């Protein structure tokens, strides 16, 4: 009921002049290519970046173009390699370090939290750590408990780190360029299911400033804030809701830290309802923070409290079997039902959105 092409439009609007339709993964590759050509201090490394698959294609051809000093693979040593990235950044380089799963970042938390996040402050501005950590998250296809986590809230928690999770090709490229140019460590979250989605991307160089949320669709009845791949699910939900005359305003925060609460609150003030869909667990998550901030702002400004709700991963480890996995994640239909209930009241159980046509999840044959 909601094709990929439609989704793209929903993301990127109608084609503007000076843009072309490219995939998220290619948008990323362009960002690396342009920035590495622009600044000789930029380099890219990590497991598998120089093999023939090139991180789902996002790094293909870069070693040929920029050489083995600037694009190279490493041993399986996440902890030390993160330290290496930090050291090179302190020395004035601009490393991009890649993890093919966010779960593996649990091995380098010490370097990221104790060194990368703190060096600029602790050494009183004497050093900077202009580091980009690319980290892939995924869903589905039986990846299981250790290959499915989205841990952005752990990084949002720590002062000194920035966190970005673009949900379309345009923002993927623009935010990557901004992240590379940023003088702080930036955790850059890429969702595998988004890699093959297409979007209109400018032919001219551009950066998407970090810290700005994006309003994807306007609507007056409810504000749905969704993270990463959940943006696509929220857009599906929006379609479902439209069919019964409910207009949802879908917002993609794009940057998770610093968080653009202004854009979110402007919308919430209009709709009176905020439904936050995280692509992660709820407890102490981005959802807790966004709802708390919304509530705090309403109190500060003495405006009446909107209806507030959230959805995210089930509070369990992610199971591999498809029937349970499907229950683990919010999707367009469960989001639509939740929004419907926020508007019509919890008892309003009469409505069920139709089962969606095939989505990128069904099309996905595994990242394997």
């Amino acid at each position, binding site marked *: 009921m909601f094709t990929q092409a439609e989704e793209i439009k929903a993301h990127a609007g109608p084609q503007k002049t000076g843009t072309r339709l490219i995939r998220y993964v290619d948008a990323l590759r362009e960002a690396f290519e342009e920035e590495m050509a622009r600044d000789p201090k930029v380099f890219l490394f990590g*497991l*598998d970046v120089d*093999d*023939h*698959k090139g991180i789902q294609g996002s790094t293909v051809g870069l070693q040929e173009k920029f050489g083995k000093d600037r694009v190279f*693979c*490493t*041993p*399986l*040593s*996440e*902890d*030390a390699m993160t330290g290496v990235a930090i050291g090179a950044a302190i020395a004035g380089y601009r490393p991009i370090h890649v993890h093919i799963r966010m*779960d*593996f970042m*649990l*091995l380098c938390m010490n370097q990221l939290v104790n060194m990368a996040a703190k060096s600029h402050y602790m050494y009183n501005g004497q050093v900077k750590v202009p580091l980009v950590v690319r980290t892939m998250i995924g869903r589905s*296809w*039986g*990846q*299981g*408990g*250790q*290959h499915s986590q989205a841990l952005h809230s752990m990084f949002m928690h720590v002062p000194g780190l920035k966190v970005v999770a673009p949900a379309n090709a345009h923002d993927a490229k623009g935010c990557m360029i901004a992240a590379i140019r940023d003088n702080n460590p930036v955790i850059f979250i890429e969702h595998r299911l988004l890699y093959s989605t297409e979007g209109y991307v400018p032919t001219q160089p551009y950066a998407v400033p970090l810290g700005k949320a994006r309003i994807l669709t306007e609507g007056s009845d409810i504000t749905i804030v969704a993270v990463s791949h959940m943006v696509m699910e929220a857009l599906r939900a929006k379609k479902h809701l439209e069919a019964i005359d409910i207009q949802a305003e879908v917002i993609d925060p794009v940057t998770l830290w610093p968080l653009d609460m202004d854009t979110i609150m402007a919308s919430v003030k209009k709709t009176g309802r905020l439904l936050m869909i995280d692509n992660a667990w709820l407890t102490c998550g981005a959802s807790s923070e966004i709802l708390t901030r919304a509530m705090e702002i309403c109190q500060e400004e003495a405006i009446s409290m909107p209806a507030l709700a959230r959805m995210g991963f*089930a*509070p*369990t*480890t992610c*199971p*591999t*079997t*498809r*029937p*349970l996995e499907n*229950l*683990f994640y919010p999707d367009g239909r469960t989001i639509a039902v939740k929004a419907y209930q926020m508007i019509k009241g919890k008892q309003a159980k009469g409505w069920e959105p139709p089962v969606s046509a095939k989505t990128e999840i069904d099309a996905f*044959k*595994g*990242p*394997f």
Partner: protein
Amino acid sequence: MTDQIVVARLYKTMLLIRQLELRIAEIYHTDAIKSPVHLSVGQESIAVGVCDPLEKDDIVSNTYRCHATYIAKGGDLFGMMAELYGKSTGCAGGKAGSMHLVDIKNGVMGASAVVGTTIPVATGYALAMQNEAKMTGRQRVVVALCGDGGTEEGCFYESINFAALRKLPIIFICENNRLAIHTPLEKRWATNQLCERMSTFGIQTHKIDDADVFKIRDTMINALAEIRHGTSGPIFIECATYRWLEHVGPLDDHYDDYRDKNTYQLWQDNDQISRLARMLDDQVRMEIEKEVTLTIAQIEKYAEESPYPAAEELYTHVYAS
């Protein structure tokens, strides 16, 4: 001449591993198995040579590439296949998939998908067994397998140092297929002197460079005897091997040209399964082959016919009571 009973037993297990994995590869495109599979085709002699001399209550810890060791250690086959199918009868109720096979009853510790992660966990298991033996007088042994890539993680060294310091009853095995996904050893190891490095921790090491299943088994038999009698702490064994198929998934990916086809040919010529087949009476061999085929058909049917877990299973076992 090697004991025919042993040859037959080794052959049967290795063939079962090979055929079952090839069958998995065959049906993979149907999406009956919606879970990444890391096959051990070509590497079977390590799993079988290592596990054959183990007792049922010895423990094996392994990686996401765990089918071979799970089978060789005596893991329940029905539970394994059902797990791959995501069925409620799976060894983990469908929650774990191919990368996390587990069968505590038969001494399979529970595999992990994060490289290196089970090495310290196995070391802790060995610590427990060392203590247990002081009560029971009987020394169970842990075997911790990892890939060549696994040895690059810091926790590998930390574990070896601790195991050596406390003389733990553990055998570390490195299955060295010289690849981590597509990246060759040369891009990851400063040198090839892993065994030399391990001996600086004061432990016995063995390097087996031809995947000879008898050599592996004999090395294990001696190692186990020493550990059980308390005359040795940890022992380290490096076994060369070759992965015939792609890193993850059902295909032969030699067309991707990231590795040498001659080397592949050498390893195929050295295939331990063919070698054992040649050592057996035709009669015995065909018996075994029939049995293996039958077993695979049975477990496949079982997996197919088993039900998926009910929705409420999503919330079971989050916390232990």
